[in-house]
């Protein structure tokens, strides 16, 4: 009997302490591929966000309606696989106390998994997945309200810049190469529609695809070469992009390679080696300490994680800024309830000083007809980066002023 009673008391004490901690923290989930081909992006995003969260917690946490609340992180590796990503989304949306999610690198995972967050109304900031489909899946269906926000330069912006760049370099005939994932296919479609929108200045002479894991791109490149393509526009991820770069070098096919921001991934740069030099891609952030705004973040990241190069600088900076924005929204909402956080994100009143820019009201109320309503990035925030000897530098040094300025 005695033992029984003490056990009950223990149970009671335990449940009390559990509810006490649950009330004192804000739970935020970070999801992404922390292993596999897109891991550099997932890991950098996660570590960038964790850096921001650590800085917030160090100051005592977020001020939620007058009470300081620390942030607790839940991490899930989706391995960059669609089915695994859907499971992760299911799991997180079934936890009742998660306020918001930051993450997703692979567009296919956003397509497979985000519906669970939408059903439960859990706030999700997609970063750094750029594929257009992860937002257009909601606007095309005419959904009236979603808690999904994007914090990445979406492929609409990126493909526009890629096409502009190809025209600028004087190419007339181009080849489009893409991988066969949702990301690659939607990138191809974006490129084709951008070429149409920009007045057909480019003629697409070859469209070739490749699969994840392909190592030999000789065939695709030979077709582009025979068709006389003067530039290769490409949508894929690190390992396959590197295989294309090596193949180009092998064939002595020296045309510019311009593509999505994934060309800045460390596993592209390292695997391709010198063959990757000169690849051009849109970037929202450049790991360059001479940019005053970026310097504190770059130094903090390198120090905390003991690296001298961020695996994917864009992902890291976006992870960092998105966590700051989310914290600001929770503060403004004065609540850890997802619905109130969502409303605050749609109407942020404070200015958030991030590694990328000073963010003023990055998102507005969801409107399926306005494709920019839940998108934080605009064309004017994004610059062209170039691979040079193992790093990404500004393709156009004049853009440095743009990155330094308060752009909003």
């Amino acid at each position: 009997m005695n033992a029984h009673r003490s056990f009950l008391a223990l149970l009671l004490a335990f449940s009390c302490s559990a509810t006490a901690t649950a009330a004192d923290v804000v739970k935020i989930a970070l999801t992404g591929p922390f292993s596999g081909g897109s891991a550099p992006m997932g890991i950098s995003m996660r570590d960038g966000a964790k850096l921001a969260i650590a800085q917030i917690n160090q100051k005592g946490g977020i001020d939620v309606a007058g009470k300081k609340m620390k942030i607790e992180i839940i991490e899930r590796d989706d391995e960059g696989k669609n089915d695994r990503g859907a499971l992760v989304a299911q799991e997180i949306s079934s936890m009742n106390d998660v306020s918001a999610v930051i993450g997703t690198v692979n567009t296919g995972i956003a397509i497979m998994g985000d519906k669970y967050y939408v059903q439960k109304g859990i706030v999700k900031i997609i970063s750094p997945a750029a594929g257009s489909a992860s937002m257009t899946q909601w606007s095309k269906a005419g959904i009236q309200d979603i808690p999904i926000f994007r914090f990445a330069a979406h492929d609409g912006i990126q493909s526009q810049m890629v096409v502009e760049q190809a025209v600028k370099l004087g190419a007339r005939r181009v080849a489009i190469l893409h991988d066969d994932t949702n990301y690659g296919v939607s990138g191809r479609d974006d490129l084709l529609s951008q070429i149409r929108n920009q007045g057909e200045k480019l003629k697409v002479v070859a469209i070739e695809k490749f699969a994840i894991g392909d190592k030999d791109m000789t065939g695709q490149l030979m077709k582009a070469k025979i068709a006389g393509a003067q530039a290769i526009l490409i949508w894929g991820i690190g390992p396959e992009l590197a295989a294309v770069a090596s193949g180009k070098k092998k064939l002595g096919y020296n045309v510019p390679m311009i593509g999505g921001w994934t060309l800045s991934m460390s596993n592209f740069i390292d695997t391709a080696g010198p063959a990757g030099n000169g690849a051009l891609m849109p970037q929202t952030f450049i790991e360059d300490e001479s940019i005053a705004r970026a310097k504190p973040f770059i130094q903090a990241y390198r120090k905390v994680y003991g690296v001298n190069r961020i695996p994917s600088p864009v992902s890291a900076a976006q992870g960092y800024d998105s966590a700051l924005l989310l914290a600001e929204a929770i503060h403004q909402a004065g609540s850890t309830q997802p619905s109130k956080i969502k409303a605050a994100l749609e109407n942020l009143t404070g200015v958030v000083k991030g590694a990328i820019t000073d963010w003023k009201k990055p998102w507005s109320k969801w409107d399926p007809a306005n494709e920019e309503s839940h998108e934080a990035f605009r064309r004017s925030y994004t610059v062209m980066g170039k691979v040079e000897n193992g790093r990404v530098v500004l393709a156009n040094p004049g853009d440095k002023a743009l990155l330094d300025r308060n752009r909003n």
Partner: protein
Amino acid sequence: MNPEILAYTQMAVSGALMGLAYALVAYGFQLTFAAGKAVNFGQGELVMLGAFVGLTLTGIGIPYWLSIAGAMAVGTGLGWFVERSAVRLALKQHNEGWILLTIIIGLFAVSAAENIWGREDKPYPVPWQDGSIDFYGISVTWPEITIAAGALGAMILIEIAKRCTMFGIAVQAVSADPDAAELCGIRSTSATSLSWAVSGAAAAFAGTIIGPVTTVGPTMAAALTLKAFSVAVVAGLDSAIGLVFTGIFLGTVENLSGFLLGSGWRETPGLILLILALALRPQGIFGKKIIRKV
């Protein structure tokens, strides 16, 4: 030359060179089959482990040539281990358990590699110069030449050893008739162990020469095993020269069909070839018909 024809030639040459890599891996099947009438379905995983060991050795500053030797030493040990742990017992009991056991060891190797080296594909640095050599407009890279020379060289060396050394002749004797060989004083188990060890070394060697072309990752084995197995079955399990021809043929056809029909169709001809061979000439195109007396 006409650019179209040049393109086809380029694809054929690239494919043929890669085909020799399939032949070398397939040769590993042949070696073990000759002695013990069993093959290692985890042969591709041995290739992968060999590549990782070689990569790790170059990572700590050991030159490429020595890293190949190190990888082969590990491969020898692994080949021996697979035979002792999985195959010998099953063969003694006259069952086909070795099929499943070698597959299981292969799966285990993949998990081990993921845990030790991670799931990323890594580049394998090689000492020779970057860039390619141009033969009348057809580009060939140094790592590709290494595959061709290495695969042919390794197979020729082992074939010579099989014919001219005591050990080689002993293995052949066991292959022909284990009981008769035992009566002549050859320990058939040792001969079988030896052939598995050599097969493991060949697989690891293949890893170190294929790695620089394909990059090294835990999943690099999957496609390789299937293709090498196709080559081994189509060529037959007792002709080394047959493997070379079949490997070159499969590599070429694969590349050309990928080029003509689109990259999604690359793997198809190999599989069709496999089905045809199994249906029409189960002993292999270059194989001898074995008459089993019951």
